[in-house]
Structure formats: C-alpha cells, structure tokens
C-alpha cells in the first residue's frame, strides 16, 4: 500500500520536525467525529454504484467477491478477483456505495446453493444446472434471468416473497454490519445503499438509493423490491416513509437514462398528463443528482439533439439503438428523454409552465461494475462483470458473452467516478454535498474542477483567493443564481489535470435556455484552452489539440495540452428574462482506451470499429439562472 510506504519512509527520517500531535480524528461508525472545514476545500472521489456477489446478476456473471472484498479494494488493498487475478487500485477511493440490486437480493446465490431436488420449477432448475456447469453456463443463465426480469416473466420461485424477504433481511443486515466496520470518518466513507432496479418492459428506470445514516436507522428498513412497480413514485413513498419514521435522510440517483427509451426524463407524468408542480417538487426533492456516465455508456448528450456539438456522442455507440435488455428498438423521438443535457432543458420548460423544475439535477459518474471492483482506469479495467475480467478474448466478446445481448463488450466504457466537494470525508458531509449538487462526474481521470457563478466576477479575481471570493460573492456548481446583479452573469472556471493523468485540451461552458415561445436551445462555448495564442478559434471552432497517442505501445505524451486551465467567463448573450443553465465540460488530450491497453498487453489485432483512443472528460453540475 502506497500510504504505508510513504509513512514508513517518514517514520524513519524526520522525527526532528515533530511539532505536536494531531487531535482525535476518525472513530468508527455512528456520528463522525471529524472536523468540517468552513467551506469545501477538498474534492472526494468515490463510486456510488458498485455491485458484489450479492447482486442477482453479478453472482450469475461469476462475481464471488463480497461487500468486504469490495470495501477493502476501494480502500486500496489488493484483493483477488473472481477470476483469480490480483486486483489493486493505483490510488484508493475516498468513499464507496455498495449498491446491490434490491430485488431478489441474493436470489441467484440462493438458487445456486439450493438443493437441486427442492427446485420444482423447470426454468429455475435449468438456471440452477447452467450455473453449476461453470462460468459459461452461469453467464447464459444470468442472461436469461435478466431477459425474463425485463419482461416480467420471472418464475415466482425466484422472487418468492416469504423466502425472499427472509433472505433480503439476512443479507441486508450482514451488509450493513460490514459497511459499518469499514466506515472510517475522516479517512474512508462507506455508505449503506442499494439499487432499486426499476424496469418497464426492459426500459431502464434504475435508481441507486443512498442513506446518510448508519445501522441504527438504516436497519429499520430493508431494500425496496421494485418488481411490482411501474414508476418511481413507489420508491419516493418508501423514502418519505423512511425519513418520517426514523428521522434519517436518503436520496436516489437515477442512472443509465441512455437505455430508458425516453422514460427517464419525460415531459409527462405516468398517467399521461403534463408534469404538475406537485410531481415536479417531489422528484426534485428525492433525486438531486443523476449518474451521467458509467460502463454501460455515457448519457450527457447525443448528436441527434446536439448536432453542433463536435464532442457530443461520447460513449453512445451501441447504447442508443435499443433499451437496456435489447428487446425494444429506440425511436429517435425517444432520445431526448434519455440524455441529461436534454433533461436539463426539459426541466426549464416544465419550470416555465409550473414554477417547479423536476430535473434540476447535479451529475456524478460511477462504475456500475458487477465485479466487486470499482475500477475505471483505462489501464486497470476489470470490466462490467466477472465474465469480462481481463483476458485476450474479452474485447471482441459479446457484452454478455454466450448470448445475444445485442451489444459488444468493446462498447463498454471504463467510466466513471463521482467527485464531491465536501467539508469532510464523512457520510454526512458527502451526502449533504450531493443534496446541494456540489458534485461532478468524470469518465475516470481525477481532474479537479471548480466553478462559481456570480454577477461581478472579473479576471482579476483569479489573482487572489478566488475560492473564498467564489463562495462569498457567488454560488458553486449545483447552485442557483438569483436576479440581482446588473449585466450578465460571470463565471470563475478552473480545471486541473489528474496528477497522474493526461493534460487538458479545453474547458467548455454548455448553456441551455428556453425562449419566450417555449422552445429550448443549447450552445457550447469554448472558453479556455491550451496554447490559445497558437490555437486561434476560426469559424466558431477551436483547432484540435493534436494527438500523441502511440497505439502500438498504448502510450501518450503530455507534450500537448495544459496541466491547468482557468478563466473568468461572462455570458455574451444573456437575457435577464430567460431561464437558463450553465454547466462545464472539461476535455483531456487524447489518450489510449482500455481496448488499446488490452491490444498491446495481449498482442491482439482489432478491426477499425474498435476505438483505440478517446478524449476523457469531466462534466460539472450546472448553475441555474431563474428570472423573477
């Protein structure tokens, strides 16, 4: 472990410099005893979406790692992956949410463990036998289970309500105990959570549910099974009841809107009528943040809605043709309800009509890894599930090998992580930062990004303590700008490369607004980029940053781009009567994809369809402007 190495070296050398001991930090579980800073000074990195062998599908795909393995791995320990490989993060994470599927929690494992003679249902028996045949059979069984679940055709035995409830309670209690043992305020935050895997005919309406609380409150409930629900109000009822009965706090993070066939961010309520203020208020209160990028593709923007954005469409190939379980093709008219930028615009439209914005959401990235391993570094990627852990075959295998999942594994992204500007590394501080949306997403690299919006920021502010000024005279990412200033809003934008990663190409502001006729618009501004004196913008476009990737060796050079980019930007076309949002996108210089690393490591030859390089990116939560 790196920390041990650094500390050991220090223990041996600089004892002469001792100037006193640090006060009590840490203490486990329960109320955190850590000191909070006056405002967020540090960004904390984590994964809000990790599955272990306790998830129905993860176990079926071969995952045998437990929540304990997952937590140890996230903290920086080496663990052995389900396929027997040594796995270790280059850098530990600051927090982790184990989000195993609530429905049939442990059901696949229970089916696997069940005495064969007790299984009467022929379908369950077939899955049981397949799983015991070995990895290939297990994958096939799990593929079939997912298909059946998407179509509401699961044999009742698998979701047996009585047995299922007992099993869920047992696994939930064990899971909570493990999470409590690893939650170490000030050092590493382990959240209690689960995934609410809501689906409609195979359209993805999944949410991750995260508790702010510890065992005393969270063990009063069990994860909510979505099997009987069609829409998320069912979940919001559960969340409200939890908060009321325990005094605790809980939030939900929708994910993979890209495979929802337009259902994630609808303009209408489930009953078909337009979204009402009450409905909008409820959703906004429960779901402050969405997961914008993960292994199953990126949901920021799609070229169909954003034809003028040359960087739209990252990680959309293969994910935009069908819903999650690939049983319903996606119509073009359904795309807007599936992408976050469009959701932000729809939020403005609905707010214009009802006074409430249901889609005032911040953004985070997370892995959705089903291996127990939160890996999204391109050169250390353990794949979506244990069937595609590192191997020479995995790149060109199906996304779910052994069955026609409609997608290829090379379409998987090694993405992403959640970045949180919090006042300490504790459940309370990180949760509260998510509630106020002071969070951002990256596709994996740990870039530091800060944004403040206000009415009087000037270029000179960057020369002083602009973070302090940002909080004093403006609002951070996730905040709301109220009318009050004269002129147009100005923004302090600052981005820093990952200290062990690639340089930055550019920082962009994405503005969305709704005109008086009720039509939404968007515009992407390049606001600061590397070598601005040489890369002059022409025809509204900044020339490409270049490319140093050597795909024969899977390397790149930081000889182009810049380690940091900062500016103060003022909206050139501000109309105080028009509601708008502004978020920031930061692009890295081109770097090799996980596929390129695989190609070099295993000496493979790929067809031209397989992407070997990419520009990784960060997306911030927006700042909203609302006229009076």
């Amino acid at each position, binding site marked *: 472990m*790196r*920390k*041990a190495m*650094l*500390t*050991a*070296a*220090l*223990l041996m050398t*600089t*004892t002469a*410099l*001792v*100037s*006193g*001991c*640090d006060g*009590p*930090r*840490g203490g*486990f579980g329960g109320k955190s005893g850590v000191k909070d800073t006056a405002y967020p*000074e*540090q960004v904390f*990195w984590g994964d809000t979406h990790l599955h272990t062998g306790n998830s129905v599908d993860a176990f079926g795909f071969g995952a045998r790692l437990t929540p*304990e393995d997952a937590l*140890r791995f996230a903290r920086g320990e080496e663990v052995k992956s389900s396929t027997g490989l040594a796995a270790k993060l280059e*850098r*530990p994470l*600051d927090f982790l949410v184990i989000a195993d599927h609530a429905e049939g929690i442990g059901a696949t494992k229970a089916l696997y463990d069940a005495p*064969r*003679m*007790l299984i*009467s249902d022929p379908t369950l028996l077939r899955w049981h036998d397949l799983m*015991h*045949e070995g990895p290939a059979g297990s994958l096939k069984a799990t593929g079939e289970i997912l298909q059946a679940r998407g179509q509401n055709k699961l044999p009742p035995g698998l979701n*047996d309500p*009585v*047995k299922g409830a007992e099993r869920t309670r047992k696994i939930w209690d064990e899971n909570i105990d493990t999470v409590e*043992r*690893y939650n*170490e305020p000030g*050092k590493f935050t382990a959240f209690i959570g689960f995934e609410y895997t809501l689906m409609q005919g195979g359209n993805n309406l999944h949410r991750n549910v995260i508790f702010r609380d510890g065992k005393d409150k969270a063990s009063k409930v069990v994860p909510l099974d979505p099997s009987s629900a069609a829409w998320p109000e069912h979940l919001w009822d559960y969340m409200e009841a939890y908060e009321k009965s325990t005094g605790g706090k809980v939030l939900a993070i929708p994910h993979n809107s890209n495979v929802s066939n337009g259902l994630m961010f609808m303009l209408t309520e489930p009953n078909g009528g337009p979204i009402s203020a009450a409905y909008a208020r409820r959703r906004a209160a429960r779901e402050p943040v969405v997961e914008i990028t993960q292994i199953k593709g990126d949901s920021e923007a799609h070229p169909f809605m954003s034809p003028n954005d040359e960087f739209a469409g990252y990680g959309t190939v293969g994910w935009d043709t069908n819903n999650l379980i690939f049983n319903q093709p996606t119509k073009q008219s359904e795309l807007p309800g599936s992408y976050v930028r469009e959701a932000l615009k729809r939020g403005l439209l609905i707010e214009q009509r009802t006074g409430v914005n249901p889609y005032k959401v911040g953004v985070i990235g997370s892995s959705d890894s089903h291996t127990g391993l939160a890996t999204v570094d391109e050169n250390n990627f353990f794949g979506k599930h244990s069937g595609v852990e590192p191997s020479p075959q995995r790149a060109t295998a199906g996304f779910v090998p052994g069955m026609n999942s409609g997608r290829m594994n090379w379409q998987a992204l090694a993405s992403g992580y959640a970045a949180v500007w919090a006042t300490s590394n504790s459940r309370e501080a990180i949760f509260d930062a998510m509630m106020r949306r002071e969070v951002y997403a990256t596709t994996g690299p740990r870039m*530091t*990004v*800060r944004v403040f919006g206000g009415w009087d920021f000037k270029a000179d502010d*960057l*020369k002083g*303590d*602009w*973070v302090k000024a940002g909080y004093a005279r403006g609002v951070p990412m996730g905040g709301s700008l109220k009318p009050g200033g004269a002129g147009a809003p100005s923004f302090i934008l*600052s981005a*820093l*490369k*990952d*200290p*062990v990663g690639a340089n930055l190409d550019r920082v962009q502001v994405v503005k969305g607004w709704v005109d008086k006729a009720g039509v939404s618009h968007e515009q992407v501004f390049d606001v600061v980029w590397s070598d601005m004196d040489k890369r002059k913008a022409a025809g509204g476009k900044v020339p490409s940053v270049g490319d140093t990737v050597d795909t024969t060796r899977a390397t790149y050079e930081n000889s182009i781009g*810049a*380690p*940091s980019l*900062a500016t103060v930007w003022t909206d050139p076309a501000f109309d105080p009567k028009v509601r708008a949002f502004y978020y920031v996108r930061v692009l890295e210089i081109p770097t090799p994809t996980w596929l390129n690393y695989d190609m070099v490591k295993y000496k493979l030859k790929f067809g031209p369809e397989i992407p070997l390089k990419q520009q990784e990116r960060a997306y911030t939560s927006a700042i909203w402007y609302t006229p009076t």
Partner: protein
Amino acid sequence: MNLAQPGRQLLREPLVHFLIAGAAVFWLLSGRAPDLGERRIVVNEQVVSGLVQRWTDTFRRPPSQDEIDGLIRDYVQDQVYYREALSLGLDQEDEVVVRRMRRKMESLAVAEAESAEPGDAVLQAMIDKDPARYSDDARTSFDQIYLGADNPANRAAADAALTRLRKGEQVAGVAAPLPSHQDEASDEAIAGTYGDEFVLALRRTPPGQWAGPVASGLGLHLVRIAARTAPTKPSLDKVRQRVTNDWRAAAIARARDESYRRILEGYDVVIVRPK
C-alpha cells in the same frame, strides 16, 4: 483422587468417539451385514415433517395425504438412487456435485474464522509488526504557489519569483483549483491532489521559508512549510476496528488456504499434460 475420572474424560474425547465409530463402521463393512447402514432407509417423523414444510413453503398450502405419500415415495426413491449412485462413484464425474461439495468444505473451513474475536494481544502484535500501516498520517501545514507546467521557462521564472518571495514581496501564481494554504493536510490527501513525488519532495524541503521550485504531477510549485507532524504512533483503541478488519480478512484467507493445504498433504497429485 477419583480413579474413574480419566476414564470419564476419555469417553468425552472426540478422538475416542471417532475411533469407536470408525471401528463400528469397519466392523459393519467387513462383517456379514453390510446392509444395515447403507441399505436401510428410515423415513421417520422428522423427515416427513421436513418434506411437508418444504411443500407448504412452495405451494402456500399443506399437502394432502396423497401428496404426502407421493413426497415420501419420492424421498425414498431419491435416497435409493443417491446411495446407489455413490456406490457406483457417479458423484465423482458430476461437476455439480463436485463444486457443491467443495463449497461446503470451504464454508466449513472458514466458519470458525468468521465468527472468532481476536484478543487485544493479537491485535497489538499486528500493529507492532507494521506500525506504519496503522499510524495516523504525517501531516503538513504549508503555503503553495502554483507556477504551471514543468518547463524551462517556468523554472527560470520560479527562481525569480522565489527571490522576490524571500524579500517579502507578493507573487501571484497561475490560477488553479489548489488551496494556497493547507492546514495539517495528510500525506494521503496531499498525494491525492499533487501525486506521490510531491509528498516526498515536501519532506526534503526545510520548513520556515519559501523554497522550490518543487515538481508535482501538475507542474511546478513554490512552497513554504509552516509545520509538520510525524505520523502518530497508533494506539490500539484508535485503530481497533481497522486492525480487526485486517485480522479477520487475513484469518479467513489463511483458514481457507491452510485447510486446503492440510487436506492436500494426504494426496499424491500427478499431472500429465498432453504433449
């Protein structure tokens, strides 16, 4: 002294039970009545209520008399086939059976480690063996001015800036989301923001005055270290949970490996690979 005591104790010894049972089995197998054990199937009350319970769990109603008879017939058939299959060695060819038995053995091997509670002496020994792992991080309070990418021009500018700083003049760095002052930042936090080499470089920097340029994963910096605290020696009370976690994870892994190694010792494994 009661002379009967050792005899009574002997009777409680598991090893003695094992030997007696083994002798009985040996006698049964070698004697004239080998069928008393394997060829006798008893369906007693306990077995029947178990069958009824499972049926009720599955179908949400109790079975009828006919259905109970059917369950018993099935049970007997299962047992007959199961025992015959074992005697024919069919289990050895069946991957499902093999895997399941392996899993049962593995669970047995780790069950004890999973529920065991280590004593303080064990935990303290773990800390003593690797104090760095459990110590609270070294912490540094420092001022920092960022100068941008590590290139010759910025290095030259750094020297000039350093001279001015040492004269007490102000120097504005390159704007970046980095704090200009950090209080008691842990090594881990500093490494997360700047990279490992910066932590090591800070350690070589004398405190009290502006110094540099210091290189990080981000570029060049001028730094002034205000104070540094060595890592605190870990006390068991402060790190108990973390040490216990480590102990348990290691104990489970060790139990699994050791149990396998012990069993393996009784086997002669010959591997012949195809040419």
